[in-house]
């Protein structure tokens, strides 16, 4: 990729700064990125960041609600988690028949944010998520490959009736798995995606819900899979939960001295 240094620094950091338990945060190099949601019609610049390699699972979320009972179903205020919050679990503290190693879904944005905070992390921002999800196993940006796009698109076409696959599938170039073909994912700024700081342009930018406006404000219009993800996020409020909506967390890369020697990253 264009910024080997980012990669390098991030990798070192990840190895140093991870807390002891399960969750694996891997470095994703930033850089200038052509987003489907450009800012002022320009590519965006994404700082390097660390991303949880896998979505948060039922088992991990179960541990979280036992540590922080205020996030248990029935205890959390409905303002922060809608009626179907964890509704698929057998009871407020156990998933029951739901497999422990599949992504947790039916979680609100507020609950997801609280979980990430408990790991010393935050939800990824849209542009971070989009950049990480642009990679396939070999390429940092596979979005121009029609075959890859078509494969991703398949998932969106099927109604949400089947059960979810276990996490850990389809690691991409950065080692991040399950970005496609499993769940929608919350992002930190899901609600501000369509508002620019320039109030004069808000009238145009905010109306993504109408087709004409969407055609005007969206870039990368041939990437239907990403557009559907954006449409879904724009349809949500922070308390909403869905059977197909989960999350993973991200961390900033703390300032660090430049690394001494290049390290080659292994890809599987």
């Amino acid at each position, binding site marked *: 990729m264009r910024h080997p240094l980012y990669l390098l620094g991030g990798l070192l950091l990840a190895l140093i700064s991870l807390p002891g338990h399960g969750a694996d945060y891997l470095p994703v190099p930033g850089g200038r990125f052509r987003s489907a949601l450009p800012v002022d019609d320009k590519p965006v610049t994404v700082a390097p960041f660390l991303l949880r390699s896998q979505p948060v699972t039922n088992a991990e979320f179960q541990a979280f609600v036992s540590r922080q009972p205020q996030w248990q179903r029935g205890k959390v205020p409905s303002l922060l988690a809608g009626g179907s919050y964890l509704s698929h679990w057998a009871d407020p503290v156990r998933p029951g028949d739901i497999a422990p190693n599949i992504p947790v879904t039916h979680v609100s944005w507020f609950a997801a944010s609280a979980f990430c905070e408990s790991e010393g992390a935050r939800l990824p921002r849209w542009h971070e998520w989009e950049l990480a999800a642009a990679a396939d196993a070999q390429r940092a940006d596979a979005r121009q490959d029609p075959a890859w796009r078509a494969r991703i698109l398949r998932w969106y076409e099927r109604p949400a009736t089947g059960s979810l696959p276990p996490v850990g599938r389809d690691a991409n170039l950065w080692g991040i798995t399950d970005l496609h073909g499993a769940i929608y994912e919350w992002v930190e700024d899901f609600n501000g995606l369509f508002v620019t700081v320039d109030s004069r342009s808000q009238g145009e930018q905010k109306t993504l819900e*109408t087709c004409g406006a969407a055609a005007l404000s969206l870039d990368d219009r041939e990437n239907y899979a990403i557009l559907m993800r954006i449409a879904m996020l724009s349809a949500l409020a922070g308390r909403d939960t869905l059977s197909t909506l989960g999350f993973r967390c991200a961390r900033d890369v703390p300032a660090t001295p430049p690394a001494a020697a290049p390290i080659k990253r292994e890809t599987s």
Partner: protein
Amino acid sequence: MKNLLKVTAVATLTALASLTVSGAVNSQKAPAAVKAENLPVIHQTLVAPPALPPQITRKTPARVVVELTIEEVEREIAQGSTYTFWTFGGTVPGKMIRVREGDTVELHIKNLASSKLPHNIDLHSVTGPGGGAPQTLLAPGQEGVFSFKALDPGLYVYHCATAPVGMHVANGMYGMIMVEPKEGMSKVDREYYVMQGDFYTTSGYRAGGLQPFDMQKAIDEKPTYVVFNGADRALTGKNALKANAGEKVRIFFGVGGPNLTSSFHVIGAIFDKVYFEGGSRYQEHVQTTLVPAGGSAIVEFVPKVPGNLTLVDHSLTRAFNKGAVGLLAVTGPDRPDIYSKGIIKASSAAATLPAHGEEGGNAEPPPHDKAPSHNIGQAVFEKNCVACHQANGQGVPGVFPPVANSDFMQKNPEEAARIVLGGRAGEITVNGIKYNSVMPPQDLSDNEVAEVLNYINVKYNNGKPVLTPEQVKKLRATK
């Protein structure tokens, strides 16, 4: 008034959660404040196309409450081929809404929890930005309410406007709303609701199995299917539209698209009136009317003689190769003064292979009833087979397989009959050469199928008659 719900929802969420909400519809129920006007409330029951709600007899405005459920469903796009449709009300096109000019429409929309995608609705009958789309963007499991005043009469398309909108529409998310003028519509005997749509699949026309959406074909505007009411043959066979001769028929015709316009035509009828573009004025004595994507027309005509009238997009390869065909079956007494039986005979008694296009000679007496058996087979062959398999059954190398001197015909007469009955798509090997084309099912009687195959076997394969109508009947039952 129009934005009351949205404003309330946004205000609630913003105040309580310090979030800006971008067009989201609150899943809570509509506030009672929407009942500001003192109009009688009417709940409209929606029905599956080609049916539609009855004509409106009301002379005063009302508040019409409509409930529409958004469902993603897998069902047949052609016999043996399925597709994942996204629908309003579980049907393609979406169920028709019918109101009167000046009515207030209160739309309750629900997106089923089993949906994978968010959806919304943009009604062309709405005056205001987005046509209702911003107010109705619903994630799976959410429901919302949107009301608008039907200011202008006409036949309007509605559709989903969620990005990528082309794909939502390509998957069947369109329907129509009829806003009747204040003075009402003239009385007719039959009303039908038909919409044309183009569908894009990775595999070919009638390829079988679940056919996935093909994004590139959609962008290139190269549809696999162009069909009426959401499926190949949705309006044929037992699903054909019906009328009696002399009845006044009105078709509410629309094009969902997403891309193609329709040259809408009914073979064997002349439209007495066409309310072109779904508006208030009409043209008279129309053969074919052009209907844009996202547009409509109301056509009225009176079939006068019995038989099948065929609805087509007169961009004809769509009709004959992609499915844009429907039938209106008309019953009633013959009217030879309007429509004679016609007479066709060979111009020379010795001719063995008369070509098409010879003069019929209308003044000739009718032919004898009992023609020798092989003549039925020959007639069927010339009418149905020669266009592709050629006049002497030799086929077109690499395109249409031969039926003359054909190992396939000689070895598999029953399979040949199955193909005639049910059509066939995909690879087939004849005389050692591979063909990969499509043959549509032939609309023939058991006797005609037996006759034509026997004719081919005797005349072109030095064989004997091999099939009886009874055998064909059995094959038809088991196909």
